């Protein structure tokens, strides 16, 4: 497989991950943690992570709970 570039939380990275779930595992995210994902500003529900394919240039955001007012 060849590397391609995506943006993960605003940082450009090279990856071979074919799916969102593969990317999260590759980057060391704890899959049991409370977090949610969006690709190109569109929400991707957790059940879709294993099948959601990635393309070069995709912008992936991963968010988690923090304090808030």
């Amino acid at each position: 497989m060849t590397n391609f570039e995506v943006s993960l939380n605003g940082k450009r990275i090279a990856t071979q991950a074919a799916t969102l779930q593969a990317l999260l595992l590759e980057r060391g995210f704890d899959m049991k943690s409370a977090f949610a994902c969006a690709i190109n500003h569109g929400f991707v529900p957790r059940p879709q992570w294993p099948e959601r394919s990635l393309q070069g240039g995709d912008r992936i955001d991963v968010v988690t709970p923090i304090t808030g007012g």
Partner: protein
Amino acid sequence: MNNSIAHGSPWTVGGKTLSSRFFLGTSHYPSPQVLGDAVRASGTEVLTVGLRRLQPESGGGASFWQRIQALGCHVLPNTAGCHSAGEAITLAQMAREIFGTTWIKLEVIGDDYTLQPDTVATLEAATALAKDGFDVFAYTTDDLVMAQRLHGAGCAAVMPWAAPIGTGRGPLNPFALETMRRRLPDAVLIVDAGLGRPSHAAQVMELGFDAVLLNTAVAQAGDPVRMARAFADGVAAGRAACESTPMPERAAAQASTATVGMPFWHGA
């Protein structure tokens, strides 16, 4: 509720019945311990939380989220920091999955200096989210017509500011807030942002607002735990006053003590 604070009769918002009329934010406390103590002192049943980018090495916000869950309150996630309807809608969808709630505190900022909400984008997002099954708590200004539009769009609560976020200046335009309450008698109205002192909370509760939401005034107080209790008392006092029908103002003085039988009365 963790503490016995009389906030009047139970009330309902977003499908949930609450006893407390005091929503509390979770930011800017000196420590997690103080946050927990302040929450317990406040008697609040609703805590606001946010979402931010996760770095995998940081643990996924697990410890914060576990501490919040242990407090036993309803969670109201916000869309703070969003600058467009699209961003807010996406973040709301992410919050619904993480927190397992349809509640969302909708914030779309229009001006970074004043943090004044972009009410046009807020209305656009509120309309879409309400149609998608969210219970939208819409942060807005004290503009009456926008509040009417947000209520008409199906928001669970309309939340006008008293003053810009974090200023602690109290209600800058009490007339606008009073008018909003009078013109929207059936809407759930919660004053969100700008309250600095318990007397501010009492003031808006006297006007008939259903609840108040604040963060900085408690978290940044010299003694956040004691201030949380003081705000709870202010909310309770204001609500009790509202339900007790305050006396009308008069133009002329009227003696409280009877004048009949007054010794040395010079009239007779």
